[in-house]
């Protein structure tokens, strides 16, 4: 799957592989050892943030689960 930053797809792939392995083999099994993917994530994240700024994608300052509050009483 491509990244929004054309040059970030390979970094994304490496991070995804690391995360998927950690998620299935550690997290889901209740193993609370630290996620080994932080360095890979940092490289990937830096690349993506640059692309987001260049493309002016409006994700800055969006609250986590923001719209959920409006839907609380629907």
């Amino acid at each position: 799957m491509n990244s929004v930053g054309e040059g970030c797809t390979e970094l994304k792939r490496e991070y995804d592989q690391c995360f998927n392995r950690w998620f299935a083999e550690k997290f889901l099994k209740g193993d609370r050892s630290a996620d080994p993917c932080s360095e890979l994530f940092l490289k990937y994240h830096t690349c993506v943030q640059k692309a987001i700024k260049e493309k002016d994608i409006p994700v800055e300052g969006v609250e986590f689960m923001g719209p959920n509050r409006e839907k609380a009483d629907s």
Partner: protein
Amino acid sequence: MIMYCSVIIIVTRARTLTRARARTEGGNAADVGDVHAELRDYYRLCQWGSAGLVMMGKYFFSETDIKSTWDQVLAAFWQRYPNPYSTHVLTEDVLFREVTPDNLLLSRRLLTKTSRLPRWAERVFPGNLSRSVYIIEDSVVDLGNRSLTTLTWNVNHAKLMRVVERCVFAGEQDRPVWTRITREAWISSGVFGLSRPIQEFGLARFRSNQVKAMKGLEHALSNLQKASAVCPGDSAEKQKNLNSASKTQKPQQYI
């Protein structure tokens, strides 16, 4: 000036679809159980100063049981793109991820999807043709409760149409081989004079996307299950095959 809104659900057109068995094609790994869906109109009444204004929307609810364990569904959830049913999804990125002190996994993903408007809308809103739709998907994995809750919404084209979708993927103690997927969506448009046809279009597209999303998830589940199938006999041989397979295709994830 103060603006306050209260949400009123006026059931003018409630339709409860009777429970129907929906089977997936081609003997996929996951069988889909009973499907229950509802459709309602909802109205958000907003007061601005002394003037009132009504924004209308559509609320959609569905509940599906899928015959896969919660663990499998979750692993597949992260790996469902790309799949044959997701050609409208152009990019996928993880923007944020964190394990909280109480062991919840929080994630934010950014998706880019093609902006496919019906022809009549393309004529009215020509500027939207060139822009993709940017969508944020926030999620919380609660291992203790065996639930994944996701909230997905578009961060551009919002005045034209806004779709907020909340999904819960829940594993059940007494039925461990099944996972229940509850989907809710709120579809609204703020465009004066055109909100109803836009909502109808939005709802039709949401339904079609829902079907694709399920098929995409099942496709990912099927891939994961094939990759992790244990053949009795030579495990070294199996490892060699997996390694050579991953060189020729996109990298496979195997558990």
